[in-house]
């Protein structure tokens, strides 16, 4: 017993001792940055306090009884066993309290449901395991992946997550939105069900394959807001965060211009040396392949083939390109990869992950050959 106590005390102290190091010691729901999130926070607090109040009353009575109505204190048991008046009262009062809760809840729900009269629409597509954003009123379209530092750290045993800023809550390309604008989100998925949640915006919504859902937000203050996927979507469900940057209108406009210009640029298909191909290839691999084929190319026994010593990888380059572009029933098609990205990732997987072919392919030499699987 003593040992257990000591262990327990020690462990608690150890855990609490870290409090200083980890400033963020949140207990309650965040208030968020939209009217809806504030309404939800108020509703949350209202119900929480009602529960606390009822809890204090009920548990108070119970513990009073436990203390005073003990046999060891010589209390004689009364023998009442029903009281219709009391029973009616404690049926009606909770019902009234519930009605009192339902009114503000209904109001907030109706407000949340009103997606009409929005100023812009953003399409959110959940994919294993990243988010894809498309702005429907301009041509901006990009993928938002977990940032490389988190990606490498969470896949490396013994790596220190505390050394990574915003570990697992950072992405390479955040979603950018203007403040003080009613933005409508339309959500769908390209594979399994995902769910898009940024707590500061006050809601989450599922992204279902083949179907669309809608939601909206109106952010008051500029800032960076982080969230995560909240519907189990496979092995890397925990590694597809969301980052939303809300900007003042002018900054947003500048961002739109910059991003559109970048998107219009043709991919750079000029030759690269081996080091460049390998370095870029690793980035492409970390974004697109690592979720299934793993950081060492080992795949997953029984589910996903290894890339290490895989005949597909180490065989001819042109059929490999075709294979990547067409996909199979198990592997998604990577037709979205540009020629330079294909060259980079193919060079990488043939010369790393335990493979050593020693060749390379340049972006302007991409000539796919399609074979049957």
């Amino acid at each position, binding site marked *: 017993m003593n040992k257990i106590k000591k262990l327990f005390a020690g462990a608690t102290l150890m855990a609490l001792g870290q409090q200083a190091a980890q400033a963020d010691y949140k207990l309650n729901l965040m208030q968020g940055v939209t009217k809806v999130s504030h309404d939800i926070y108020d509703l949350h607090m209202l119900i929480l306090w009602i529960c606390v109040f009822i809890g204090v009353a009920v548990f108070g009575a119970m513990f009073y009884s436990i203390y005073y109505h003990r046999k060891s204190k010589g209390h004689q048991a009364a023998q009442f066993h029903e009281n219709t008046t009391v029973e009616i009262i*404690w049926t009606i009062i909770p019902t009234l309290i519930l009605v009192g809760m339902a009114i503000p809840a209904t109001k907030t729900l109706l407000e949340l449901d009103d997606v009409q009269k929005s100023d812009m629409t953003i399409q959110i597509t959940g994919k294993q395991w990243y988010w894809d954003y498309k702005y429907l009123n301009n041509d901006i379209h990009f993928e938002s992946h977990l940032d490389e530092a988190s990606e490498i750290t969470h896949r490396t045993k013994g790596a220190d997550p505390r050394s990574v800023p915003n570990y697992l809550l950072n992405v390479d390309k955040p979603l950018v939105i203007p403040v003080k604008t009613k933005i409508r989100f339309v959500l769908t998925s390209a594979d399994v069900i995902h769910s898009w949640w940024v707590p500061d915006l006050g809601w*989450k919504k599922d992204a279902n394959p083949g179907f669309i859902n809608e939601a909206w937000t109106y952010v008051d203050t500029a800032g960076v807001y982080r969230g995560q996927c909240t519907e189990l979507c496979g092995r890397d469900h925990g590694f597809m965060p969301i980052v939303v940057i809300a900007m003042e209108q002018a900054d947003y406009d500048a961002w739109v211009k910059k991003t559109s210009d970048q998107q219009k640029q043709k991919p750079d298909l000029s030759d690269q040396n081996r080091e460049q191909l390998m370095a870029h290839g690793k980035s492409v691999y970390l974004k697109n392949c690592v979720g299934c084929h793993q950081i060492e190319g080992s795949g997953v026994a029984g589910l996903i083939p290894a890339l290490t010593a895989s005949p597909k990888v180490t065989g001819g380059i042109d059929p490999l390109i075709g294979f990547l572009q067409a996909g199979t029933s198990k592997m998604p098609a990577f037709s979205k990869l540009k020629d330079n990205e294909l060259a980079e990732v193919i060079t990488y997987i043939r010369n790393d992950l335990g493979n050593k072919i020693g060749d390379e392919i340049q972006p302007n030499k991409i000539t796919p050959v399609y074979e049957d699987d």
Partner: protein
Amino acid sequence: MSAVVAEHDDHHADDHHDHGPAKGLLRWIITTNHKDIGTLYLLFALAMFFVGGAMAMVIRAELFEPGLQFVDPAFFNSMTTMHALVMVFGAVMPAFVGLANWQIPLMIGAKDMALPRMNNMSFWMLVAGVLLLASTLFMEGGAPNGGWTLYPPLVLQPITVGKALPFAVFSVHLLGISSIMGAINIIATIFNMRAPSMKMMDMPLFVWTWLITAFLLIAVMPVFAGAVTMLLTDKFFHTSFFNAAGGGDPVLYQHIFWFFGHPEVYIMILPTFGVASTIIPIFARKPLFGYASMVWATASIAFFSFIVWAHHMFTVGLPIAGELYFMYATMIIAVPTGVKVFNWTATMWKGAMTFETPMLFSIAFVVLFTMGGFTGLMMSIAPTDFQYHDTYFIVAHFHYTLVPASVFILMAAGYFWLPKWTGHMYNEKIGQLHFWLSAISVNILFFPQHFLGLAGMPRRIPDYAVQFADWNMISSIGGFIFGLSQLLFLYIVIDTIKGGTGEKVTDEVWEDAGKHSLEWTLPSPVPYHTWETPPTIVPTEHVLDHH
């Protein structure tokens, strides 16, 4: 002091020993005796409690610190999935079936369950089902890892679930058939085997809650079996129930699943209510407050469980009318549930309470279950649920309603009835130690998870952002203490069966227990055959006249 002085036949205990238990191991395989089968169910459930618990320990060990330490994410997902399936279908449900097997015939004056051979079959089917499920752990691609809800398209994805899917589905079929047979047996026993003079409203509350639970089982287990069969045909026979490409809808699965799933969670809690309502009056030395309202509250909770399923799906994209309806319907459940909590409190009020281990666990149940109820109420509010849904807040919520509620009450039932069943008293000191360790550690384990959920930590993730580290570590520490404390329970069970404190228990075991329910009027330990002739329950006046 009693109103009744009745004739008691001296021979009644040994008259029917002409066919006692079979000898050796075979006894346990072929037995049709409700007490043997009850024991089998309870021991099997206890074993599965430790198997599922070991999986929980893997989960808490991985979450002890941020970063991946022990397991890879897919195996982590397998652990969360299997932990849930094993605990729900292997531990909690069988444990309550075990209690039903032991207690219902004793409490209603029946000599056995109505269909003893089917009883044996349903137990062994359960074993087969759980073994089949456990075998998936060793299969190529690992055990199912799409969550215990088995949502498509995830579980149908070849890169996510390997060979395990059909085995998991068949296992669900076996478990379903087993539960349905068990439920049929319980209903038949209660309706047909009850001592003829016992009216429905004379039945102990444990019997009532199980009767209602059995109807829930018959109503929803087939629906679940149907849903997983649709998964199977979608995967292997090109049907498109849940596949949008063929005109199906993955959300349809969620509707069907939760049509089963919501009654299912009540299947695990209603018998809990029954046991609590049995234990609290005895240790308060008072009759249960509001017997009739308890029955009605149980029945109405069961009824509502069928019409609130989509509150598990508020974020799935329901239309506003649906969200409002399911929100209101769900909120209403707080009323009958509240009535129950008030009734238990009123039962304790002005009693003459003592605090033996079963009572301690029961009081902890009332308090901690109510906390789970509060968070449940918070989540019934659809807009706030948009923030809580699929976070650690819900993990905390349902664990509060299952661990310090269902599991605590199962422990309480063990301490409460083991002396009756074995004739031996358990060691009260170790029992109390077990209680305090469990009650404290369970809160260290689950309370911080509320904070994690509110701070934004999603559920079912193997690794998390650094700001969630502290509460996760505390929660894990609580988990380890809780897990280790349960070994005390194992020790007590074994020790009590082997002789316990050596103190011979009386027939009543607990002071005046005989005034509350029939089983305490039987000898301790309970003979192998009981109520060969049903007891008679006589109106007091009648007995008085007779006297």
